[in-house]
């Protein structure tokens, strides 16, 4: 083997070993951080900070929330691709009857300063959905003969989120009735 190739191989080996060692050392910590971060984002949707979350096997009801071992409700995934730019992802907390307790949008690419009214940190627009449930309102904007206010300049964004909330609640309704019913059954 000539000298340049030997040098290159040696340095590549040293780099590979260092990287592998660091990866091995930090792997668990990174995995742990990822879980903590995801749960912290999720817990923000709950009105009570002391509530705990347990993962459910269902795809419609992703987490069950408990306060002092008493079930308080469920967390539903909120997704839509009808926004202004890319998909919008969030979480919806409902109580055992399907009434909305809290909403958070955790990922979106809407226009900063215009479409980001769907972020709780920037606007209380999402609050109008609190305590609504499937059938309690028409999940459309007022300008589409629905129940909810839109935000000027962000009609597409707010329309997408409003419809997504309605759709999520509607889809979860049968599962919710089922789960609550079987839950009661097992209590008897």
């Amino acid at each position: 083997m000539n000298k340049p190739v030997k040098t290159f191989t040696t340095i590549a080996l040293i780099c590979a070993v260092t990287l592998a060692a660091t990866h091995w050392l930090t792997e668990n910590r990174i995995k742990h951080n990822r879980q903590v971060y995801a749960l912290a984002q999720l817990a923000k949707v709950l009105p009570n900070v002391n509530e705990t979350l347990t993962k459910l096997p269902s795809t419609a009801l992703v987490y069950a929330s408990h306060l002092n071992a008493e079930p308080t409700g469920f967390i539903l995934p909120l997704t839509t691709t009808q926004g202004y730019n890319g998909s919008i992802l969030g979480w919806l907390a409902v109580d055992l009857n399907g009434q909305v307790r809290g909403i958070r949008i955790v990922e979106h690419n809407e226009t900063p300063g215009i479409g980001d009214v769907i972020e709780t940190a920037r606007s209380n627009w999402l609050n109008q959905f609190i305590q609504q449930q499937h059938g309690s309102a028409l999940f459309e904007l007022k300008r589409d003969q629905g129940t909810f206010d839109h935000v000027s300049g962000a009609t597409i964004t707010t329309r997408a989120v409003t419809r997504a909330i309605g759709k999520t609640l509607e889809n979860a309704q049968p599962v919710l009735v089922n789960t609550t019913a079987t839950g009661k059954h097992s209590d008897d």
Partner: protein
Amino acid sequence: MISYKNIAFDGIWRNNPALVQLLGLCPLLAVSSHLVTALGLGVITLIVLLSSNFLISLIRNHLHQQVRLPIQILVIASSVTLADLCLQAYFYELHQRIGLFVALIVTNCAILGRAELLASRSPVRYAVLDGLMMGLGFLLVLAVLGSLREIIGYGTLFAHMDIILGTDASDLTLHLHNFPILLATLPPGAFLIFGCIIAFKNYLELRHERRKTLPVSQQITR
């Protein structure tokens, strides 16, 4: 001539990687909407530049013409990956905000440029000082741009500092005014403010030049 003073002056002012060489602008403009993210990326770039300059200068006698560039890229990419892993392990929330741009540091020409131009042909002490000064120059520009954009665009300063300083720093936020100008938080605003900073630097240098060349009598009357 290589001298400590020249290297320091080059890195921070005369040959500043961001203001004069205009290198690494993509991450520079993308993360500078808040001071905290700007500082985060600035410090990581500084660390990577420092370590890559050090390592490349250390092995400079083994860098054959044919494999010089691949080895430099290898060392830089490894340093960036190491920094990225540590960031994920110890500052996960910061990583959530600037992670994409940390990986892009590999492509920051300022780093390969320093490795190629200086580190691969100078003693370790010069290479380390150069890495430190170039990194500081980059960090300073990021900090100034980040502060300006946060003050103009959000009306705050030091917001979200807790993600690098720990939870004790969560109330460091200064609310300066209630008239945020949206433009400053968007990419065009970043370009405008960055342009103003370059213009201001050129103005300072020009004024300095003029003062030096003017006759003494005129200097007094000005």
